[in-house]
C-alpha cells in the first residue's frame, strides 16, 4: 500500500473539469513534483487534499486511512502541512507567533488551563518554543524572529511559510510553488532545504513547481498534468522527454 494515494480524483466547476480522474501515489520519504502549464489543475489538487475544495468524486488515502471526508482542520492533525502559492501568513503577528501557530496540532491544553496559565500550559509552551527555535535555526530565520510579517520582503515570507509548515512536524508536506518569486540564490537555498527536509527530517514532499531546474535537482519522481489529466509520470528525465508533455508546453 502506498503512503499517500489519490484515486480518480475529480473536481468539476460546472462544465469545467479542473481535475479530471487523477490517480497517483506518493511513497514514504520521496519527493514527488507535479508540473504542468498554467491552469492544469496542480494547485486544485493541493486544495483538494487540504480540503479547501470538496472533490466531485474520487478518494484520498493517507497512511491507509480514507481522508476524503475529513474536515479541513483534521488534515493538519493527521500530519499533512502545506504552503500556499500566494503566501498566506498571519500579517499582523510576529514571525515567532506565526511559527507557533504551526504547532497548533500539538497543543493539548484546555481553555480553562490556559486562562490560568497552569504549569502544564507553561511546560507545553516550552516544548513548542524549543521546536520552533530548531526550525528557525534550520532555515536561518534568526534575524526576523521578532519582526512583524507585514514588514518583511517576499522572499523571507516564502521561507517563513515553509518554516510554519515544518513547525507542525508534518509527515507529508505540500509545497505550492516554493520557488515562485524567489531569486536564483534563494531558489538554491530552497532546493537544499527541500532535500534536507527529506533526508534529515524524514518528511515526504509533494510539490507543485514551475522551475524545471529545481524540479530536476530535488525530485525523485515527476507527474505532468494538463487540463486536469495526468500526461506522464516517472523520473524527471523521462517525463521531460515524453511527447505529450513536450506538446503541452511547446504546442505541436
Amino acid at each position, binding site marked *: 500500500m502506498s503512503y499517500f494515494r489519490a484515486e480518480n480524483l475529480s473536481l468539476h466547476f460546472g462544465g469545467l473539469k479542473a481535475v479530471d480522474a487523477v490517480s497517483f501515489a506518493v511513497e514514504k520519504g520521496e519527493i514527488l513534483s507535479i508540473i504542468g502549464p498554467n491552469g492544469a489543475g496542480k494547485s486544485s489538487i493541493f*486544495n483538494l487534499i*487540504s480540503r*479547501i475544495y470538496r472533490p466531485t468524486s474520487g478518494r484520498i488515502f493517507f497512511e491507509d486511512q480514507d481522508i476524503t471526508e475529513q*474536515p*479541513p*482542520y*483534521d*488534515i*493538519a*492533525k493527521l500530519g499533512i*502541512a*502545506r504552503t*500556499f*502559492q*500566494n*503566501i*498566506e*501568513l*498571519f*500579517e*499582523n*503577528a510576529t514571525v*515567532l*507567533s506565526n511559527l*507557533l*501557530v*504551526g*504547532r*497548533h*496540532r500539538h*497543543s493539548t*491544553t484546555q*481553555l480553562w488551563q*490556559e*486562562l*490560568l*496559565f497552569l504549569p502544564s*500550559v*507553561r511546560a*507545553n*509552551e*516550552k516544548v*513548542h*518554543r*524549543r521546536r520552533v*527555535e530548531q526550525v528557525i535555526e534550520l532555515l536561518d530565520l534568526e534575524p526576523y524572529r521578532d519582526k512583524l510579517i*507585514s*514588514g518583511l520582503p*517576499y522572499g523571507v515570507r516564502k521561507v517563513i511559510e515553509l518554516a*510554519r509548515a515544518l513547525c*507542525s512536524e508534518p509527515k507529508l508536506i505540500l509545497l505550492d510553488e516554493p520557488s515562485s518569486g524567489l531569486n536564483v540564490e534563494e531558489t538554491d537555498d530552497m532546493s537544499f532545504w527541500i532535500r534536507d527536509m527529506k533526508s534529515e527530517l524524514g518528511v515526504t514532499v509533494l510539490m507543485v513547481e514551475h522551475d524545471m531546474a529545481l524540479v530536476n535537482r530535488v525530485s525523485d519522481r515527476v507527474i505532468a498534468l494538463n487540463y486536469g489529466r495526468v500526461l506522464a509520470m516517472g523520473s524527471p528525465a523521462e517525463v521531460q522527454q515524453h511527447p505529450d508533455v513536450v506538446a503541452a508546453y511547446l504546442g505541436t
Partner: protein
Amino acid sequence: MRFLFKTDYEDDIKLFPHSGYVVTYGVLLALLLIAPYVLSSYLMSQLVFVCIYATVGVALLILTGFTGQASLGHAAFLAIGAYTAAYLQKYNVPFPVYFLAAGLLTGIIGAMVGFPALRLTGIYLVIATISFALIVEEILARWESVTNGNEGMRVKALSLLGVAVPRDSPTFYFLCLAVLVLTIVGTLNLLRSPTGRAFVAIRDSETAARSMGVNVALYKVKSFAISAAITGLAGVLFAHKLSFISPEMFTLQLSIEFIIVILIGGTFSLHGAVLGAIFIVMIDPFLTYLKDDMPGIIAGIAATFGAGSATAGNIQSKVAAFASLNGLKGAIYGIIIVLFVLFEPLGLYGRWLKIKLFFQLFPLYKRATFKRQKIYVKSERNR
C-alpha cells in the same frame, strides 16, 4: 533604548519582559489602591466606570481586536448580565453565585450568537450582531414578568459575605478593579497560549489557520463565548453601580461606545481598552462642561472683539441652542471615530508607543516607522 538578551524560552513567555515593567505596573497598582482615600467621590465614581468600560473593552478586544469578528451587540451582553443579576437578586441569591451565573449565561448566549455568525464576515456580521442587540432590547421591554418591562428594575446594593457594599464605597471600587485586573491577566494568559494564537490566526487568514489545524468554527464560537461572558460579568457590576436598570440604557449607542473604546484606545493591545475606557468616561463630563460654558465664553470673546452686548447675547443664545441640539453627542462620537480611523488608526496606545519610540531613538526617529507595507498579492479565492 534597552536591548533584551534572552537566554531562556521563559523570557518570551513572561508577562513582564523586564524589571522596568514590574516597577511601572507596581506604581500604577499602588496609585489605584490608594485612589479611594485621595480622590473625590465624583472622580471615584468615574474610576469605577472606567474599570467597567475597560473590562468590556478587553472583552471586545478578544473578539474584534484579536479574532477579527466585529460586534455591535455588546450592549446586549451587558444587559443580559445586568438583568440576570437584578433578577436573581430578587430571590436572595448570594452575590458570588449570581455573578458567576450571569457570566455563564451570557457566555452561553454569546456562543449561540457565534454559531450563525460563523458564515458571516465583515459588514454582514456587524448587521447580525446589531439585530441581536435589537432583539434583546425588545425582549427586555416586553418580558415584563421577568424584566419589569420599560419600568426597569431596582438593583439593591450588593452584599459580600453578609456585609452590604454600597455602590460608592471603596470596596465596590476594589471589586471592579479586581475584576478588571483578573480579566486582563486571564486575557494575557490566553494570548500567550495556543487558543490566543489561534484567534490571531483566524483574524489574519482563515485559510492558513485551517490548514494549520485550527478548527476555525470552534475557535470563533469560543471567542464569542469568552467575550460575551466577560461582558456579562461587567454587566453585573454595571447594574450595581447604576442601582437601576431599564431597557433604554442598553441601546445601540452603548454598543457604539464600546467600539469607540477599542478604536480610540488601539485595537492591537490590551492597553488600548483601558485608555479608550478613560477617554469615553471622561468625554461625557467634558462635553457637558463645553455645553454649559462654551456659549458664555464665545459671547465673551465676541464682546472683547467689539461686538455690542445685544450681538453677544444673540451669539450666546445661538451657541447654547446649538449645544443642546438632540443627537449632537452621537455626531461628535461619529466625528471622533472618523478622525481616529483616518489619522491615528493605532489609537491612543499607538500614539503613546510612537512618542516613546521618538524619545528612545532621538534624534533618529523616522516618521514612517509605523507605516505598514501594502499587500498586493493575496489570494481571496480560498476564503
